[in-house]
């Protein structure tokens, strides 16, 4: 009998003890992460309900964006986001993978370390500063030298037709490329470092040149990790706001020409959200945000799955 009450008291004390409280605290904070993610999706969805109800699927196919007439179609922004990010990735991928290979396989270790530290440092420059350089230095340069050349010599291709404005889809593609290259390079470098030395040595022992060694062992081994890095870069490019807003010209139109101004999903939010003229207007912008959120969530989930696979191969907990 006596022993039983002792056990009970002991159990109560354990419940009130520091351990219990402390663990509870950490549980709450850890689950905050999940809560934030769910809250984001829920809030964005709730706020975009008016636009969802009014426009339905027409929202993503409509080309007209007119706040005065309360007619909202997001296709020009979706077009601008997709084209600018995909082209930027198309240019950035070979550059990043080449640089990562140079750092890990070709350069002497110390020199490679310097290059990779430089790349990582540059990945930390804020996007508004890339935008500042883009709008004050790169765009005037494009307008005066690159774009006139393209439209005069290659103007017969629709992609290079039109008046050179400087601020254009081309400027957005360039600035995005410059911004995602350090990110993809840094991650690809880490992926390439996981390739087992023994595999590389085996290839060399069979008489492979360095490039053949890279083709036969390094690239196949790192394939999924490199793909993860590129997809992560795509996520960054699609969500990139400030730098693109400053150089793309902010004109909601769908044009084949790279020389004409365009608009992206994050840019229109950045420009119009604080001064949205009506409830429907801000709701339409929220819906664009919701589309952006869902797309980047899918992209990031995909990229993380690929990259986690790599760190598991490396034999450590991710």
């Amino acid at each position, binding site marked *: 009998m006596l022993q039983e009450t002792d056990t009970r008291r002991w159990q109560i004390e354990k419940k009130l003890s520091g351990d219990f409280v402390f663990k509870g605290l950490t549980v709450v904070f850890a689950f905050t992460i999940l809560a934030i993610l769910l809250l984001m999706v829920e809030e964005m969805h709730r706020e975009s309900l008016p636009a969802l109800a009014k426009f339905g699927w027409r929202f993503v196919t409509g080309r007209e964006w007119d706040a005065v007439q309360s007619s909202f179609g997001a296709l020009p922004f979706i077009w601008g986001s997709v084209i600018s990010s995909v082209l930027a990735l198309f240019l950035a991928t070979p550059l990043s993978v080449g640089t990562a290979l140079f750092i890990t396989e070709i*350069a002497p270790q110390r020199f490679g370390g310097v290059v990779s530290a430089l790349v990582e440092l540059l990945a930390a420059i804020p996007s508004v500063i890339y935008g500042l350089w883009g709008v004050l230095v790169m765009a005037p340069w494009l307008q005066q030298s690159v774009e006139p050349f393209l439209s005069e010599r290659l103007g017969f291709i629709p992609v290079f037709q039109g008046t050179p404005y400087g601020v254009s889809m081309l400027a957005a593609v360039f600035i995005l490329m410059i911004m995602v290259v350090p990110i993809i390079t840094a*991650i690809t470098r880490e992926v390439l470092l996981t390739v087992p030395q023994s595999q590389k040595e085996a290839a060399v022992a069979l008489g492979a040149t360095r490039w053949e060694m890279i083709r036969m062992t390094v690239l196949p081994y790192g394939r999924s990790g490199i793909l993860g890095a590129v997809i992560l870069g795509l996520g960054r490019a699609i969500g990139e706001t400030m730098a693109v807003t400053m150089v793309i010209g902010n004109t909601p139109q769908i044009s084949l020409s790279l020389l004409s101004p365009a608009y992206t999903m994050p840019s229109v939010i950045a420009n119009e959200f604080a001064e949205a003229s009506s409830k429907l207007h801000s709701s339409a912008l929220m819906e664009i945000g919701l589309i952006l959120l869902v797309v980047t969530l899918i992209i990031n989930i995909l990229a*993380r799955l690929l990259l986690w696979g790599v760190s598991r191969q490396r034999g450590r907990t991710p």
Partner: protein
Amino acid sequence: MSRLTFRHAKNGCMTFLMGVFTLAVLIPLILIFAHIVRMGISSISVDFFTQIPRPTGETGGGMANGMVGSALLIFLASCLGIPVGVFGAVYLAEYGGSRISTVIRFAADVLAGVPSIITGMVAYALLVVPMKGFSALAGAFALALIMIPIVLRTTEEQLKLVPVTLREASLALGVPLWRTTLKVTLRSALKGVMTGVLLAIARIAGETAPLLFTALGNQFWSGKLTEPIAAMPLQIFNFAISPYEDWHRLAWAGALVLVTVMFGLSLAARYFGRTKQSGL
């Protein structure tokens, strides 16, 4: 040409190509950096640090209110973001079962990839609308959302590096688990935790998009946390897209200050975190 010569030639070509790619990556980045330094140094002055922006048309002025505003926003965001990140990491490293930890870890990685403008919209819906106005608090909340996953992941990595024997020694002396965690595990990992915190601060110091419709920006000093507040990145943005030469100069000076602060933070982070940070 023999087969072997061809293979060696191909090897040489590809090696050369990779070198060219590396140069192509580094040159624009170095150009940008050099331009910021050159324009920044020629535009910066004592006024820049002591004055607030002048009205259009007048020359001179500075970003003093933006610097103070940014510092305040970072401080407030840290008050919210660091505890959540660090204690969340303690759960993952010390308590969590493997499945639920994986889910939370994954959520943190995915959260880190959400575009920063979205966190601004969420902060707008959660704070600006109910409080009926743009405020420093909403801006700090948006920045904290960006900070949390960064602090969480770096802290967790650091906690895992603390040897189990250290914890066991403390527990064997009869110290309760929670005190062991606070006084032994976290303290041993303190340098690494600092690294994560500094990296997170470096990241949010330059964030502009989440502040556009939360902190909003302010031409003057702001007295209350419930009022719109100036921030350096916002000022750089507004001055850069303005048509005035004098404001462009202020933007360049601001960019130089911001980049210097960020590189300082990165160097400090490197100093604290001798163990290499993993981007995976």
